[in-house]
């Protein structure tokens, strides 16, 4: 199943609980239509991974996820030979091997005979596929998400290049494996490291920023159907206000959702100042941020006027 138009993409993402902007829908549609990978950047928690997951749900495809980290190598990401299985088989097949070379008198002819059987040991049977190989050999089209690709080493990017441009993987012993179906590939990055130009060149680039208050309201009301309009507005206003402060880690959508969940769990209908401060830990994940927000809220008392105290260098 594929997306057929941008409008349909927008609608399908929404049906699967993902409120996207037109830009996001356009790029998701294009990535699907042209088979180009989608490089998604943005601050933590704005829904980069969620977007890829939603695409998988919307298309009804299997999701294959590769989590990158410092030191990840091809054996973890692409494939690995199952050496133990190979050894085991060699042992078990010893008799058989004897049979094959029994009739030969000289070593060279024996070697020739054996080498004719080589393929048995370097075959797909002994390959342990890792996410990338799995994604391209899968009989059904899949969604492949390469998560936090910026955490991987620069060398690892090079492994990705062949996959991302031609959807093929070369295994020296077997040759080149072509993708049965072009997977929908999404790469996410927190830009802790600038990706190389060669990698970027192969991708469509999408930057997801913190949502506008309207979009955030839409998202919250989608995840918490039946939430009271006034309550919702206030939640989003408080988060937007906090986001404008100079924080180490600004609250993102997932934190807004967590906070809403907490407030609902506390059966709050109003959000007085002391309740905000008591539940602030859900929104702020640094001690210094907590202090800063607390002071800011106390200084402001009311929650209506927007804040302009941010230091802009």
């Amino acid at each position, binding site marked *: 199943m594929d997306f057929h138009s941008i409008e349909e993409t927008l609608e399908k993402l929404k049906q699967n609980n993902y409120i996207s902007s037109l830009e996001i829908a*356009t*790029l998701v549609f294009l990535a699907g239509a042209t088979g180009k990978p989608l490089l998604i950047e943005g601050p933590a928690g704005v829904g980069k991974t969620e977007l890829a997951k939603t695409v998988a749900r919307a298309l009804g495809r299997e999701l294959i996820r590769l989590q990158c980290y410092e030191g990840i190598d091809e054996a973890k990401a692409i494939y690995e*030979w199952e050496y133990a299985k*190979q050894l085991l088989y060699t042992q078990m097949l010893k008799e058989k091997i004897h049979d094959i070379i029994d009739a030969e008198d000289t070593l060279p002819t024996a070697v020739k005979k054996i080498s004719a059987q080589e393929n048995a040991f370097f075959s797909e049977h002994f390959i342990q596929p890792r996410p990338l190989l799995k994604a391209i050999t899968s009989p059904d089209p899949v969604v492949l998400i390469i998560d936090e690709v910026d955490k991987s080493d*620069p*060398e690892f990017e090079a492994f990705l290049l062949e996959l991302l441009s031609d959807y093929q993987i070369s295994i020296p012993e077997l040759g080149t494996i072509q993708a049965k179906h072009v997977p929908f590939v999404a790469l996410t990055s927190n830009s802790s490291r*600038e990706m190389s130009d060669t990698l970027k060149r192969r991708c469509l680039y999408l930057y997801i920023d913190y949502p506008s208050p309207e979009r955030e309201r839409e998202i919250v009301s989608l995840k918490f159907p039946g939430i009271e309009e006034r309550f919702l507005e206030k939640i989003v206003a408080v988060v937007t206000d906090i986001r404008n402060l100079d924080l180490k880690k600004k609250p993102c959508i997932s934190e807004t959702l967590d906070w809403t969940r907490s407030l609902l769990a506390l059966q709050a209908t109003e959000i007085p100042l002391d309740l905000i401060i008591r539940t602030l830990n859900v929104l702020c994940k640094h001690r210094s941020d907590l202090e800063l927000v607390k002071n800011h809220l106390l200084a402001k008392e009311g929650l209506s006027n927007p804040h302009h105290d941010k230091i802009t*260098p």
Partner: protein
Amino acid sequence: MGFVTPIIHFAQICRAMGIPVSPAEVLDAVGQMEWIDLSEEKQFKTVLKANFIKSHNDQDTFEELYGIFFHRLPGMMRGKRTPAARENLLNLLDAPADGSSGREDFQTLMDLLASDPLSYLDLLLKMQATELDLPEVDMSRFSADREATFFPASRNRMQARLRELLSKNFPSGDESLRFYLQEYLLEALPEGVQKGDGEYSHPDLPAYFRPGAARSGPANLGEVPFQHLTAEEAKAVHDIISRLAGKYKDRIIRRYSRSKKGTVDIRRTIRKSAQYEGVPMKLAWRRRLPQKPKIVALCDVSYSVWAAVPFMLNILYSLQDCFRQVKSFVFIARVAAVSDIFARHETMAAIDQVMDSYQLQYPRSAVYGDEKDKYPGDQDPEISDYGTALAQFLEKFSDVLDHRTTLIILGDGRCNFLAPRADLLGKIREKCRRVIWLNPEPEALWEDGDSEMSAYRPYLQELRPCGNLRELAAFVSDLFSILLYSDVQK
């Protein structure tokens, strides 16, 4: 396919503004146009953006350029050209793709655009730029960096160039192509330029594109001493620094990963042994990251030096991922620890705070060297006293030093004829791995007047001038060789 040419032109303009757009990306964008509804401008823009802009930092520039190119520059948009020119172009582009003559013309046009970086449209934008004073940042000093060469040239020179371009013979010898170019140029040029009216300025262009205060003096930012930078230039320098930092970070990380082997990696050893019937013939080693160095920065912030401090701190903190730890102290006569401020705020905000506080009454704009606050020396209650500062640092903060720490001192070594107490620097030197001194003054002045550099010099592993961006960049480029490979001279 009438959109192809504007896209190619737009790519050219993006390149001229320093956004690297490769031909492959242009092809991708053109290819994707068939999937979208071209009458919806938002979709068109999204496709261009997703293909041309691959870094968040460039997105604002893109928005700006897009607005100018497709909305404000007259004649750039499809449908605004003369019917003849448009037809001409359409014929060219719609020609069958089977290698007939029309295709060749198209190819020629592509080649022309690709081979001549100052092609006509680029030129066109520059003509606008003559009146508009775009930021002139010459980065050619930093070889590997992409260059943003956008020099406003004089109107006459531009016109001469334009004439030359129009009289040039095109490889194909096709007159219609030239006719088209001419036509297009005439269409696209603002009326004022067509008339040769020197006072032209487009009313719709954004404010910062308008003529600003021209600065006299050297045009190359890399060479301007820090204390002579204007506020805007200082911002440009900070931008360059963050870009440089990104580049060094990559290089340093690569260096870490290439370095020495550590313990045996059992898993990989066994896997390798499979080749030899389970006999571990070859050992696989686990990579060991070399210990990242710790950095302690001690900065003189008295009025003679303070202009250089923000830049030094910016680059150190931009690179802090590459260090185990960065701690910083500032002093005039008394030493204050400022690491906390950096831990709590973003680098630039922290620098502002540091410059604001610690008995410095300079306004925040002073960070950028605002003209009127340039010599706040009169308000300065303290004079720099290196002897006292070193004594205090040794007494109060020497616990931050250990055998992995590199101390970087930024100062001019001018003790105002007070005792330099170089022996204290010797003691500090014994507590840490090495001491590096950066002096913002030119080398010729180091032994002059109350400068005590000669007294301090024996205890320093490195002594470098650091008065402008070029010197700072050179230092940072060498920093990791110094940190990782040079040995202690005890």
